[in-house]
């Protein structure tokens, strides 16, 4: 889902130097021993856009491969930090318990 620009956290107008600096910082923040997958991702992103040729090639020939699930992640993303359900909503939820739904799970015990 993430483009190499997003992975390195640079804009599409970034220069070679900006990209290299962002790459070095990203590698420093994500050493391979911590998360080898992320590290590889950063390396690949840098290889892709490190120079003008690479960036042009990416712009011309890159076919986006966005998974539908990744789109759903984006559409139903958490806004802000994760917190428990707000108290008002939680209390509202308590009143949504219905006897019919409860009974669907109230099954006969083997005699």
């Amino acid at each position, binding site marked *: 889902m993430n483009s190499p620009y997003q992975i390195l956290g640079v804009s599409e107008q970034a220069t070679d130097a900006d990209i290299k600096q962002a790459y070095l910082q990203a590698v420093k923040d994500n050493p391979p021993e911590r998360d080898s997958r992320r590290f590889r991702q950063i390396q690949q992103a840098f290889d892709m856009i490190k120079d003008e040729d690479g960036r042009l090639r990416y712009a011309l020939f890159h076919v986006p491969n966005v998974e539908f699930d990744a789109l*759903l992640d984006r559409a139903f993303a958490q806004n802000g930090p994760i917190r428990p359900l707000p108290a008002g909503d939680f209390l509202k939820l308590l009143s949504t318990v219905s006897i*019919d739904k409860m009974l669907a799970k109230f099954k006969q015990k083997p005699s």
Partner: protein
Amino acid sequence: MKKIIQKISAGLNELTLLQKARAHYEAGRYKEATDLFKELLKQSNDAEHKRCLADCYLQRAWAMADKGMHKEACVLWENYAAYGEAPLQAQDAYVLWLLAGKNNHKAYAVLEGFEARQLDEDYPELAAHLGALLLAGCTDMLAHLPKDSALPRHWEWVGEALDAYRNGERERCEQALKNLPFRSAFRDLRTLLKVQLLDAASLEQAPAMLAKIPEASPYRPLADSCLAYLQTGEDFIATMAGLEHLQRRVVAHAKGFSSKQMNLLETLLKQKNQLNDKMRFNLVLQYQEVFGTHAAQAYCQGALANYPAGYNDYRKHFALKDPFEESRLQALLCEQGKNSYDARFYWERCIDILKKNRPADDKKIALILRHMAELAHYDDAVELLADSLEYDADDRQSYLSLLSIYEQNRPDPVKYEEWLERSLKRFPADTDLLVRAAKSAASRKAFKKAVTYAKALLKVDPVNTLAKQLLFANHMAHARRLLKAEKFHLVEKEIQAAEQLSVDKSLRRQAELLRGFYLWQAEDKKQGLQQIAATLAKLNDDPVNMQFQVQMEAGLLELPTAALTRALPAFKDYLLSAPELQRLIAAMEYYDEQLDDRSLLFKALDKIKAPLKKSLQWLLDHETLLLSWCQALEKIAHFELLKHCAKMGNVRWRKPIWLYYQTVAECQGDSSRLDFMALFRLQNAFEDAHAENDHKTAVLIGRLIEQARGAMNPFQYEDDFDEFDEEAFGDDPIEDLFGHLPESVMGRIAKKTQDMMAKTDPDRFMAKCISQYGKRIDPQRLGILLVNPDFVGAIMVLVAAEDLKIDIGVSFEDIVERFEDDSPQFRLPFF
């Protein structure tokens, strides 16, 4: 008499009725069983019949409840209660069914009849459900609960906890929850509230805590709602799918979803897992605002590969008006669909558009041309790459690619030189290009030029070992040429130049050896001979390697070797050690790199053939070394020595790799010479190599088999001819004859044929065939048939099956008939 008959008949009737009732009861047909047991009870008040009837009512009550028909379930339970004995079952369910059927009055009456112990101990699940209903607002129930029951007491603490939670009094809430005993009917609510009280740092524990609430708990939907609130993406949707509409709305509200997000969610939940490519594509287009236009466009662009019909919608939604962008997208889509012809057409359109903005878009044009070259055949690729350099002449990789194609894929020495020269003009200090130039010059015997390139290479990279070796080899080659041309006054200078290079000891001694030859030829024969012998002794520990090297060096100088051989120690009876054979392999490889024609190498090897062959017998414990020896011999195509070594190795180790080398040696590297038996053996070896995880050998054998098959069928068109399914013509006689046999039987037969082949050779096998079957068929006909490898294969299967005493239902005559009928099964169109 009549009475007796009537009595017997009534008895029989009763027996039949009982049998029927029992049969229905045992088969779970409780409705039918109910009627029959009722009938039976009319006839006799049997306790067992009563018990069965009660159970039928109870089972039917559960069945109704499962269907959500709670009122009917209540009636049936009451019927059960009329016939059943105390203690009655499912009283807890009866209360809940009454509540679900809105018959609260009756439900409360039943609850009033409960003792506190009954609700607390016998019906804890009912208590949990009643607790959940209290939370949902059915507080009028409280007055009807048994007075001493734990539920109303716990409800007070729950009320206090909720009040504290509502007011944000965390500690008071926790304190109130602590009052609830472990087995309280509100224990799952306690878990939920504990999750709600977690701070941000501990929130990661929430999913595990929520998972502890059992599936059957009335609080499970609430736990799922809390979980959904914490989730995103696919997990969120999966959890939301299990919630009721009201609960989903609460979660969506809490998450701050827009109405569009809510609509998308509801649509996704309706479709569940039935979304196909088209539906997904259209959903993304419809809700691009929710997904974000950029992400939606990226998704749709990628999805066009699987749903090309969406192209027009894509254009419309993403306002694709730029003709370049349109052609670029079409080209990429064609590439994804493996339609290289159309892709090229669209890329060319892109180039035409870009050409209008030259020179600003030159780089883009060059990149597109290079991209096209990557996907094109070599003949087109060279043209595209050359074109690309017209727009961007500084792309080193394009020059290297062109050189690589002209060197390996479409060898063209003239073009290669031309492009090498152009590349060097553009990148005079490029090490890769200088190495190529030096090697190329050396191969053309332009030693001076090669030396110039190697020197330039050393200037760029002073420690470049390859450059030094190249320079050394070129000085040496030049010195040899001067020596051959008898320009003795120049030889010394070349040897000195070679010696001055800081190369390794063994290379310097090569120079020393050449100096010996120079002395021998130009100055003093005796002194020269001594120097040659002394240097060869320093270079080698054994007479065989010495002899090999002297033969090579003298051969390179086109000098007679008789005097030299005499001056060196006797070698014919010498047995090489493992390190000495290793050295010989290295020397062979060194000289092979310098020679265009291997005849000199073969001559030198032939000279030491006798001690070599004898030595190998002593080196049979060194499998790896012998395999290196075979590999080196295969590379230089010395099949006589290869056969000798591989045969010994195969006898000793019986491994696929040895069979491979033996086969290569026997067919002298020409796979078209392989007969059916050899191919059969190779196929088995290939399978064995796979089974032993010896992938390297499997690849070698696989390649040889492929070559052999290619040689048998040179017209291997990849495209059109593949469409003709071979099976459609039914021309696989082995399949025709033995296709009916189970795999296990064929496996045994195949193993037997393998054993047979290990014990015999093709000629002997054919002789055996003629003697065994010659009387049953005209020998001339048999002779003709035996030329057909498939016929031999079929006979082998027959012989193997006979040996194994397996009746395969195919006789010798069947095989003959199948092969004699093997005239073309179809007519060619023009004949």
